[in-house]
């Protein structure tokens, strides 16, 4: 039986998460279909068709799906679900939102946020903020899975596979899109960036986050934050890294004025190299840092920018 991956997209562009979800699916089987449900499906479908291992892309054109409305998206997925042995989505705010709805409508349990595929029915996933790794087996015939993007290397490229479209009348009378406040940034996305520099409460205010800009420019980095920095209103919510924010694993993660609470570590401790800048030599962040610099961030950030 084929496997289905639900494409992650924004504004007509396929997100890198999808090639990672495909990589997870390829560990289970090799007949992989991708569903693109959006308003402007063509560019997204073109990209999805070129992900190595995808045998068919199915498109569905719909405004509600463009806005990632769980009620609309789950209704579409439901209409084709029984053709598949597994359905995968990325564990993004979209995947986390619609997938459990699909699961319940199908009377199936879901396995969330997998970091490894052991076999077609057995998966590894972090629990307790990543302080334990559970191996879980699904006894369901149809398996519904969300994939932690940072744990899988994206599947490569291929020449485009077949694209077909789906007819369906969406039944969603309970929810509608009202508005979106999208954070505009020239920088790479947190979950796709090779380098991340994050600020915490130690930054003291939102203006001081500008001290990270020059360094981020030089390193091509994304800028992240701790919960404390977001709660205090220094920066928007979409910058939060952690157990309950974004999970990242860049080549280089620089934590500035962040103490290293369990919940923050849960979101970044799989980074390849971690640098911590903190004036408290006992800060927990130093226990996971490859390179620690015990110093006042207001002294060293300008120096660091100059030295790069």
């Amino acid at each position, binding site marked *: 039986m084929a496997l289905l991956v639900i494409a992650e997209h*924004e504004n007509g562009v396929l997100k890198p998460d999808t090639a990672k979800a495909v990589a997870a699916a390829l560990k289970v089987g090799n007949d992989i279909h991708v569903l693109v449900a959006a308003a402007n499906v063509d560019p997204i479908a073109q990209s999805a068709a070129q992900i190595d291992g995808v045998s068919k892309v199915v498109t569905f054109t719909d405004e509600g799906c463009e806005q990632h409305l*769980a009620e609309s998206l789950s209704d579409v997925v439901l209409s084709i679900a029984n053709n598949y042995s597994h359905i995968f989505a990325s564990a993004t*705010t*979209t995947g*986390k*939102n619609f997938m*459990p709805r699909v*699961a*319940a*409508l199908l*009377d*199936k*349990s*879901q396995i*969330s*946020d997998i970091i490894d595929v052991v076999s077609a029915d057995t998966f590894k996933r*972090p*629990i*307790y903020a990543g*302080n*334990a*790794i*559970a*191996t*879980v*087996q699904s006894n*369901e015939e149809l398996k519904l899975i969300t994939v932690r993007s940072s744990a899988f290397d994206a599947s490569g490229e291929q020449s485009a596979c077949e694209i077909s479209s789906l007819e369906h009348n969406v039944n969603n009378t*309970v*929810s*509608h*899109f*009202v508005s*979106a*406040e*999208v*954070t505009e940034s020239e920088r790479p996305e947190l979950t796709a960036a090779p380098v991340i520099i994050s600020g915490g409460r130690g930054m003291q205010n939102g203006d001081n986050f500008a001290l990270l800009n020059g360094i981020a420019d030089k*390193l091509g980095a994304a800028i992240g934050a701790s919960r404390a920095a*977001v*709660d205090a209103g220094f920066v*928007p*919510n*979409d910058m939060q890294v952690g*157990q309950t924010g*974004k999970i990242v694993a860049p080549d*280089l993660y620089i934590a500035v004025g962040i103490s290293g609470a*369990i919940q923050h570590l849960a979101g970044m401790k799989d980074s*390849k190299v*971690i640098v911590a800048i903190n004036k408290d030599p006992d800060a927990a962040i*130093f*226990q*996971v*840092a*490859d*390179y620690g*610099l*015990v110093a006042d961030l207001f002294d*060293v950030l300008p120096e*660091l920018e100059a*030295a*790069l």
Partner: protein
Amino acid sequence: MKILVPVKRVIDYNVKVRVNSDNTNVDLNNTKMAMNPFCEIAVEEAIRLKEAGNATEVVVVSIGDKAVHEQLRTALALGADRAIHIDAAQNLDSLHVAKLLAKLVEQEQPELTILGKQAIDSDNNQTGQMLAALLGQGQGTFASKVELNDGKVLVTREVDGGLQTVGLALPAVVTTDLRLNEPRYATLPNIMKAKRKPLETISADSLGVDLTPRVTLLKVEEPSKREAGVIVEDVAELVSKLKTEAKVI
């Protein structure tokens, strides 16, 4: 309008868990337990809606053994009006929790059900969405703002790209994110008063849900440990190490 708030008893968020010696689960013996932080935010939101005159009754429910009475009493002390304990084995699949809650919603007919977006133990982030699905209701997940108006609810959601606002027909399900509110602390007089508020226990069996597990926990392991690295003297040393040793810049 009635609001139902399901709450979960979990390990205190400050405690770091350990995997037990036979790798079958984590060791929760003598561990400090508390209400899941996202559920606290849900309780707070319901109480604020009542204080603002938008709701008339706040009912809290928890599923588990008798120990959950502690969290239910906490919710009552914070301002919930009455509590329901669904007596069941711990460690149910989210689907089963959602099914039990759906039965309760059928009985209680709340116009709004507010849950935490995820429990900090299993980190599943499923129950609210599943409950909404089973009830055929709309779902406003990861909420940072909830506004009731004219038979519907506007929910502003924390999403990966920023914020999104959706409108949902009532009755509906909302799940809370961190920025929705800052929960209050229970005062001593309210803790005393809570002891006299109604707390009813019903058995999960009486709700007629098949609770046969669909997911088997095979093993629990420690994550791979990171070794603490070195402390560098200054920025120059840091930059040089990143270039020549780590080769990441």
